[in-house]
């Protein structure tokens, strides 16, 4: 199999899907979306087969790399979006938002797979621009403003990167590094920069809002550039303190919320704050951990978001200070919600647990940081159980037959749950986590493990 062709198809499939979806009649739109995502998923599978899942491969013009890192994160991203598209139903899936989704997916794929910092910045700037324009069109201005700030930061940093190749990240000017991390924080919803995303979630809690706050770009910026800031100890210490305070605070905020979207949003952002903390770590395993952790968040976060969205779709806003008693009408959703929620909070047997255990035991955290990280995990678990109890337990006051899940919705959530559980019980099946691979990463010098997929960079040079 020609790998260049596979990579080209991987980028082109969602892009072509976006065009076809835009042109397709309304009733056909959701199928074009699903087909485009399925084709993308197939190309990822082909890439895995072509590279045997372990070796790196390059594709020239955009400096794209297929490595275990990309083969872990890519499928998680596509699977999550596929589930969202299917869960969205006829009304949502037929909307124009899907065109935006597919375009964004195509761009984010370039960002994930590229090893060129300049192309990464351009791609992230473009995706932020697309998101911002869509949000302004929908009247969700606050997150739009944050995204514009991010675009400005990226544009100001871009000239510094055109002249540099990857191994020279250590020469990055401190101000540029800091600016890029702040841009990542803006996208990740790190407190207090979570205001815009929370407002977006509260206003219209649908798939668009969900995806717009699933901060792919922010994670990428942190993973690629975070470790380089670590060479500047004064700045990285300040950033770490920020994250260490923000993570438990975000998790605690989830407990205090009255509405489901905000409670879900804060839980999601708390897990992203943990990921950001991890991405700034310079430990030799951080690439493996960050990638696995990211894939786990993508799967469980999307799954929990989809489950929460299905409830909102049927019932509107749910008051979490009261009991709603949905259990009787949707027992399957109740179970799936609990599993996906606990997966996001890192319960044993899930992919997130493996990643968290790996993170906690290998990241260079002091006692205070350890306590704060563990407190965040603990609070997230409590927030999830609180959401579950308030939604599904209590007296059912009304007959709500429409609460029952449809087949496609069950399949979507079950597929995500299955992926999370399989990843947790058989983590070696995850390309990035296979022990041989992780040991290879460990064997490399810290200088070579600076960016995600940097192992590919070594092969290139």
């Amino acid at each position, binding site marked *: 199999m020609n790998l260049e062709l596979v990579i080209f198809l991987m980028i082109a499939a969602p892009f072509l899907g976006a065009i076809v979806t835009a042109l397709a009649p309304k009733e056909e739109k959701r199928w074009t979306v699903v087909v485009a995502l399925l084709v993308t998923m197939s190309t990822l599978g082909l890439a895995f087969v072509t590279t045997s899942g372990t070796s790196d491969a390059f594709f020239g013009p955009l400096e794209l790399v297929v490595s275990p890192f990309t083969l872990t994160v890519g499928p998680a991203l596509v699977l999550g979006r596929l589930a969202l598209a299917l869960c969205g139903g006829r009304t949502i899936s037929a909307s124009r938002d899907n065109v935006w989704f597919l375009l964004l997916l195509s761009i984010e794929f370039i960002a994930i797979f590229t090893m060129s910092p300049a192309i990464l910045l351009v791609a992230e700037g473009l995706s932020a621009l697309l998101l911002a324009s869509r949000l302004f069109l929908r009247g969700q201005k606050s997150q739009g403003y944050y995204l514009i700030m991010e675009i400005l930061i990226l544009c100001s940093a871009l000239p510094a990167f055109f002249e540099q190749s990857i191994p020279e990240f250590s020469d990055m000017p401190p101000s540029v590094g800091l600016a890029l991390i702040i841009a990542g924080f803006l996208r990740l919803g790190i407190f207090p920069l979570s205001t815009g995303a929370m*407002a977006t979630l509260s206003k219209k809690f649908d798939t668009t809002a969900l995806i717009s706050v699933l901060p792919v770009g922010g994670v990428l910026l942190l993973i690629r550039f975070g470790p380089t800031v670590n060479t500047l100890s004064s700045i990285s210490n300040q950033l770490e303190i920020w994250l260490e305070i923000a993570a438990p605070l975000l998790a605690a905020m989830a*407990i205090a919320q009255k509405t489901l979207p905000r409670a879900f949003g804060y839980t999601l952002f708390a897990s992203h704050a943990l990921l950001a903390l991890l991405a700034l770590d310079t430990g030799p395993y951080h690439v493996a951990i960050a990638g696995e952790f990211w894939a786990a968040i993508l799967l469980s976060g999307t799954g929990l978001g989809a489950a929460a969205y299905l409830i909102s779709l*049927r019932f*509107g806003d749910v008051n979490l200070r009261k009991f709603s008693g949905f259990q009787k009408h949707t027992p399957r959703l109740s179970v799936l919600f609990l599993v996906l929620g606990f997966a996001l909070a890192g*319960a044993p047997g899930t992919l997130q647990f493996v990643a968290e255990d790996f993170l906690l035991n290998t990241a260079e955290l002091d006692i205070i940081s350890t306590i704060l990280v563990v407190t965040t995990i*603990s609070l997230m678990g409590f927030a999830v159980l609180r959401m579950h109890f308030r939604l*599904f337990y209590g007296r059912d006051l009304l007959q709500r037959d429409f609460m029952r899940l449809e087949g496609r919705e069950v399949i979507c959530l079950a597929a995500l749950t299955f992926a999370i559980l399989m990843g947790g019980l058989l983590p070696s099946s995850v390309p990035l986590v296979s022990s041989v691979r992780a*040991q290879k990463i460990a064997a490399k010098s810290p200088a070579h493990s600076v960016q995600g997929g940097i192992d590919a960079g070594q092969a290139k040079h």
Partner: protein
Amino acid sequence: MISTEFLQGLLGLTLALPLLSLLILTIGISFGFNLTERRIHQLLGVELSLGLLSASLFFISLLCGWIEPFSVDLGTLIAAGSYDFGLVFHLDILGAMFLWLTMALVGLVGAFSANYLHQDEGFIRFYWLLLAFVIGLEIIATAERLDLVFVGWELLGISSALLIAYFIRRKGPVENGLRAFAAYRITDVGLLCGIVTLHHLSHTTSISALARIDSTTALMVGGFFVFGAMGKGAIVPFTPWLPRAMEGPTPSSAIFYGALSIHASPFLLLRLAPLFDQHLVLREIIFTLGIITAIHASMVGRVQNDIKCSLAYAAVAQVGVMWMFIGLGFYKIAAFHLFGHTVIRTWQLLRSPSILHERHQLLNLLGKDLNPTGRHLERLLPLSVQRWAYRVALERWYLNELWDIVAGFFMSILKTIDRVDRRWSSFMESESAGYQEEKPQKTLTGVIKK
């Protein structure tokens, strides 16, 4: 002489059986198979009978010295450099005792529940959670590494909270389940921090390596572990969740809060005993917490007016005594106490629903009232002190109020931050000053209003 390979295989099978049963039950529920009460009961019966047989073999063989403690390696979950998450299990006499208790008592409760929960809407849910509980306890009893112990500990916590909230239609049990879970999560921070710190400082989480770490590390890590064990054992100030946990069905109260779950706390301390031997301060802390808990639970338990709460506090008092034994270094006495108390308390709790009936029968047989009890040492105290002690006991040492104040304080801070956050977003959205609560977007028919 029994071969080691056979024992290893048998232990692996014992650990796998509940997992297999849980899988069968999950598949059955997911795909809508006809899972009658009888079939579920048979499934659990076969699994626990086999488990009890093998646990008895392990326990008796180890007790009589026919076999030596042994380990079984079921593979590695994840490995990278010096870090690995190995599925290594080790069976010694302490673990075999707890494994036997698990199989015997869960089997007993399982059989009891078949009638007790007959035609209850949560019948399947109860047995599913009971199996998750068994898996958690098996892991705690046999895990050789503390990472694995944490897995079992988490399973125990989650299944416990869900069983307290078993009666899902009633608000009280559900709120109480949440409160119990909050206590668990707070103390789980200690356990996980202890494991992580131990790994950072000594590069291992193996229980067998605990005896070799230095005293400074032992003090820090041991402090975390003692805190971690406080929640499940309902040690002061984490006692208030226990009477609330009694809202669950009686079989789950018996197995969780009379028997195995609450005793997981002294069991963990016994497992970590080599660590506490490294530093006297740790043992002093354990002893102090134990004696405070024993006094608290004894005082409060005597003024309770329902049998389940009374038994719950009696169980906590005995757990406090076990902590005292551990603090004094009497590990064997603590283990023996754990074994005996677990069995007797389960029996008492299972009989508690019919206690009034039995009392009436007893009175009829005796033909007269029983001698009044409950006058013990307090007679030596002045009347004013007696009254004060009664009031304090009735208020359960005001621990509930203390936790309410602490939770209220943090919640008020969080709500203030939330308010500021919403106002800021309202400003950015160019809406009128001050945020407004979101209005429902959907109608009851599920159609979105755009």
